[in-house]
């Protein structure tokens, strides 16, 4: 047990130090010691990323750190997943559709949000950038999405977030999906004004917000 705790903490620390080779080696060591794969993912990798998220919020880490770490976590998680016992698969906390709205081609924040949500246990379908409302609508229906995350980085494109919500209302499926919005010009006030269910300032907040919307 102590051995397990020690190795998982080492995985966390190696991740925070962005030491990819060390993380890979420790994950292998943990598996060799027959530490449950789900514990390696949740209590080692995801926990390390969660701590990095807290450091990001305090201004101690920045976007590049989170992106590199998220990639290390995704890579190792993908390698571990086939080893999970039946019924032990990471829970699917809900299907998230995410995309940058039509007319907008910024995707850095959106990509990181998608990755963090995926690591956080959500089934993320990334529709990319410059996505028309009609495409979002069709996929909300076909994927039976629980969440729709809309990103907009310009004052001229954030109006698409309002249009999307209106489209869902007009077609009587607004209450089928929780809508979250984000992007540099977007604020909580805008979210309240257009009737979004949530607003996230950054990728770390996005995961917390999605968890809150689950409740």
């Amino acid at each position, binding site marked *: 047990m102590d051995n397990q705790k020690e190795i998982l903490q080492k995985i966390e620390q190696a991740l925070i130090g962005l030491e990819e080779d060390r993380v890979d080696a420790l994950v292998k060591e943990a598996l060799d010691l027959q530490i449950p794969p789900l514990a390696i993912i949740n209590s080692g990798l995801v926990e390390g990323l969660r701590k990095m998220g807290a450091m990001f919020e305090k201004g101690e880490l920045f*976007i590049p750190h989170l992106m590199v770490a998220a990639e290390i976590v995704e890579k190792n998680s993908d390698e571990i997943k086939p080893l999970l016992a039946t019924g032990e698969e990471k829970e699917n906390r809900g299907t998230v559709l995410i995309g940058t709205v039509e007319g907008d081609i910024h995707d850095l924040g959106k990509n990181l949000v998608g990755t963090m949500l995926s690591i956080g246990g959500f089934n993320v379908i990334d529709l990319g950038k410059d996505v028309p409302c009609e495409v979002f609508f069709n996929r909300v229906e076909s994927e039976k999405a629980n969440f729709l995350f809309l990103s907009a980085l310009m004052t001229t494109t954030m109006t698409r977030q309002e249009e999307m919500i209106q489209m869902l209302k007009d077609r009587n499926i607004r209450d089928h999906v929780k809508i979250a919005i984000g992007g*540099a*010009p977007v604020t909580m006030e805008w979210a309240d004004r257009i009737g979004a269910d949530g607003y996230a300032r950054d990728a770390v907040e996005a995961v917390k917000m999605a968890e809150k919307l689950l409740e």
Partner: protein
Amino acid sequence: MTHRERVLAAIRGEATDRVPFVPQLTYFALEFSSLPEKELVRDPGAMAACIAECGKQFDFDALYAGWESSFNILAQAMGCRIKASEDFIAGEIEPLVHGKEDMSAIRVPDPSSDGRLPVHGELIKKLKDIVGEEKLLFSYVPGPLTMAGMLFGLNNLMKTLILDPDFTRSLIERMVEPIEVFAEMKIKAGADVVVIAEPTASCSLISSDMFKTFSGPCLARIRAFIEECGVIPSLHICGKTLPVIGQLKDLGFSIFEVDHVNPLPDVLDAADPGLCLQGNIDPSRLAMAEKEEIYSLSMTALETAAGKHRFIFSSGCEVGKNTPAANLEAMVRARNDFSAKG
């Protein structure tokens, strides 16, 4: 004082008759043309006319001579393929560089013939013909870190800042010459202030140490080039910039465009007294708020900065196309009322 004298005095730290008002505004001027967008964006004379008319209606003290994202047009001229929108404002760039092996594909553009660069040169010339020496012309060129992100993909760049700093530095350095060529074209066409737009250097994305290592050195080189050409260098970084304002003295810029997320009192404390600050009304508020709120925000900014630091009253970033005219008028009214108080 003329508009020109007013802005130059503010930059130099000399007394002005009123606070200069120079919002960061290009697309908004579309409203002042009767041409459909698709035609307007292909007609430098028509673009110049509507920028000038907009500036006259709102009594701007200087004008921004530009249209679509300067990043896109330079990236295209350097060899990237672009899927441009009809109004040339948003456009998706296909990265040119995927690794060290692609560096040789980066071109130094010919501003007389490559892509939409000539249109931008023509736009500045036409605007200069209209306003003459009455108003300074500001014009954007992209910053080196931001251009590296355009050519390599921003997501990739963010990772290689950490994973391959040597490659990243060499890629950023390769951006200097194309940016200087673009700047020189604009200066020869009549730009009086060249604004280096470096949004990727925002501390909303990277640390102040990363700024110092990756963006700072090449910004300083381009700034020196602009000065050697005889015009004024300005720097624009969107979002959070308070952590790097202290570094700007060494970089040598004359003007720094400050975004709204940076509280002006803190910016004033951190900025060198010789740096002229330009800002910082939130463009989102400009687009969404009622005019009374804009007036109030404007008065607060003016009371905080004007007379206490070299200052040009402005938006924090680009004024959106969808901004109500009444809100720009509120900014003007605030500037006039503040200045009348003496």
